[in-house]
């Protein structure tokens, strides 16, 4: 089991009902982690529509899950 910190923004935060949480996982990579979290919170958006960031920098979905990292799932942006 690995502990990670998850950050939620915009519609993901609304769906999760929180802006962050600690999550225990055995997921080998970030894609599998998102699948777990999506099932738990009922997120509408598939991973293909999102980007993922680890410790404040964009990451790849097949990157391994590192313990104690801060992971953000980034829904499609709408600034500007």
């Amino acid at each position, binding site marked *: 089991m690995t502990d990670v910190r998850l950050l939620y923004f915009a519609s993901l935060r609304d769906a999760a009902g929180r802006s962050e949480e600690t999550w225990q996982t055995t997921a080998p990579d970030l894609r599998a982690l998102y699948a777990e979290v999506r099932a738990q919170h009922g997120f509408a958006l598939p991973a293909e529509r999102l980007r993922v960031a680890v410790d404040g920098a964009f990451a790849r979905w097949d990157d391994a899950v590192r313990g104690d990292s801060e992971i953000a799932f980034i829904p499609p942006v*709408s600034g*500007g």
Partner: protein
Amino acid sequence: MTDRDFWLADAPVDLVPLRARLQHDRAGAFASFEGWVRDHNDGRPVLGLRYESYVELAQAEGAKVLAEARARFALCEAVCVHRIGDLAIGDMAVWVGVSAPHRGAAFDACRYIIDEIKDRVPIWKHERYADGDATWLHPEPAGDGAPQ
């Protein structure tokens, strides 16, 4: 004012010092872009909106966009500031300003910066509509009719 070239502002932005930062004796051209809050989106009347950001990542990604613009185009200066928090109709949501010796580079860089900011920087718009509804905007990839 910060000495960064991209930043997030949680209050209205004074344009006079922004514009002054772009001034340069070699600059013959200045191009700017502003995004303003419209009273409608996709045909729905809009009352107001809120921008939220993943601040740490937005700051890093926005700075990267500005660095790319400086590398690609022959510029003097380039600055971009994006509002977060609550905005009303007519408020300025984003400001991009570029100065350059020649106008082609100024226009191209200004457009590059706003296009990339809208595409990549983790900022989200939450719109409130006249019919009482409200929603986060998560546009489809560009080319599929992304708004504005």
